[in-house]
């Protein structure tokens, strides 16, 4: 039986892992390769690395880090942050990334999704969607939540799927960093309206939140950062809890 995936996310700044609340107030959380290895050993199903300060001069540093990660870990991983072109993706895949994630650049130029899917296959194209409640509507936001768009989240999710996204990484900016639980209604709406897997992100605070997002929202995977980095939840404990609650997980 296909299992639900637990995905720790490592936000990268200048080669270190950081995590803040609502994408600001950064705190240092350690060496990414060391953390990645720890998560592999603990039973993480995949990893996501987001370069949150992606700039041109940082690209080489990121490629080097990706290579370092790929040589050490034996599970799939996704790299995101500042990807705008086919060349950006080529470099990351050549250095061993399994998938790449695009967000703002896809909103700016949706044809990028088609181009990446055609060149590298949908299986490696993750489209990250950040959503915020604006006048009671879930709207797509970009630039780490700073800019709003005219896109309704559900319409955008359908469009990215039609263009060839292989997975959707859905983050509720209302929930991110709050530890109050995932956005259940939003995740459920998106997961049930697209044909590709949906990774729920934002708001994980305890083990029950994970069970809820799998059972109530039909998410295919759940992503979290700080609760794993600061060892508030250990992955083996979380998986045991989910298994006890009849949710299929890889043990």
């Amino acid at each position: 039986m296909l299992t639900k995936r637990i995905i720790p996310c490592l936000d990268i700044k200048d080669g270190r892992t950081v995590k803040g609340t609502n994408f600001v107030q950064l705190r240092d959380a350690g060496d990414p390769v060391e953390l990645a290895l720890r998560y592999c050993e603990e039973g993480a199903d995949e990893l996501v690395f987001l370069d949150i300060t992606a700039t041109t001069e940082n690209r080489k540093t990121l490629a080097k880090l990706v290579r370092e990660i790929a040589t050490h870990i034996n599970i799939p991983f996704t790299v995101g942050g500042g990807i705008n072109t086919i060349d950006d993706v080529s470099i990351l895949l050549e250095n061993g990334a399994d998938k790449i994630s695009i967000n703002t650049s896809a909103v700016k130029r949706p044809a990028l999704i088609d181009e990446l899917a055609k060149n590298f296959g949908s299986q490696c194209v993750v489209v990250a969607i950040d959503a915020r409640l604006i006048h009671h509507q879930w709207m797509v936001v970009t630039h780490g939540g700073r800019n709003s768009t005219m896109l309704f989240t559900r319409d955008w999710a359908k469009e990215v799927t039609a263009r060839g996204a292989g997975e959707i990484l859905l983050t509720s900016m209302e929930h991110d960093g709050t530890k109050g639980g995932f956005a259940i209604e939003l995740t459920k709406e998106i997961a049930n309206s697209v044909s590709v897997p949906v990774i729920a992100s934002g708001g994980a605070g305890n083990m029950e939140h994970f069970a809820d997002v799998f059972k109530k929202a039909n998410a295919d995977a759940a992503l979290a950062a700080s609760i794993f980095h600061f060892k508030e939840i250990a992955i083996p404990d979380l998986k045991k809890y989910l298994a006890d609650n009849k949710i299929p997980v890889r043990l």
Partner: protein
Amino acid sequence: MNVVIIKYNAGNIQSVLFALERIGIQATVTDDADLIKNADKVIFPGVGEASTAMKYLKDRKLDELILSLTQPVLGICLGMQLLCKHSEENNTDCIGIFENVKVRKFNPAETHVKVPQIGWNTVYDLKSVLFSNITENSYCYFVHGYYAEASTDTIATTEYIKRYSSALQKNNFYGVQFHPEKSAVVGEQLLKNFLAL
């Protein structure tokens, strides 16, 4: 040991190289016929689209070369599908080692499950030395929208929408639908088993 990875226009070769490095093997990536023929072990990886990949292989006569190999050959994901008779992906005639096996598309309309299948699923009914020291119902990492039918060549079975072949074997040819290079310790054990053949 001389291990060769067949170079063609399909992805994830780098991941296979790194996985082999982690178990102490330095492999060569090549499309040179002599190097491939003389290798002790040949790995035929792949993530991509069937008709584009087959065209590339045919243009370089790599399809005939693969068919003539006598040493252990391991097809991974698309590599395994290309060793079958035919794929529904753009109606493609494949190399045909597994001559009774057709590759079909998962039909999401049949259920509410997602296609492609992405993630960790179990393998069972393990029937080959390729799975030595791997227990029944071990988890492997899959990413695919097409599947090989169950057949007499099936050496591992997985369920997603239906029962299908997650591994095939005929003579010196082995194929796995999942990605051993990304399947943690289970995948490493499988690669070790293949190299020990």
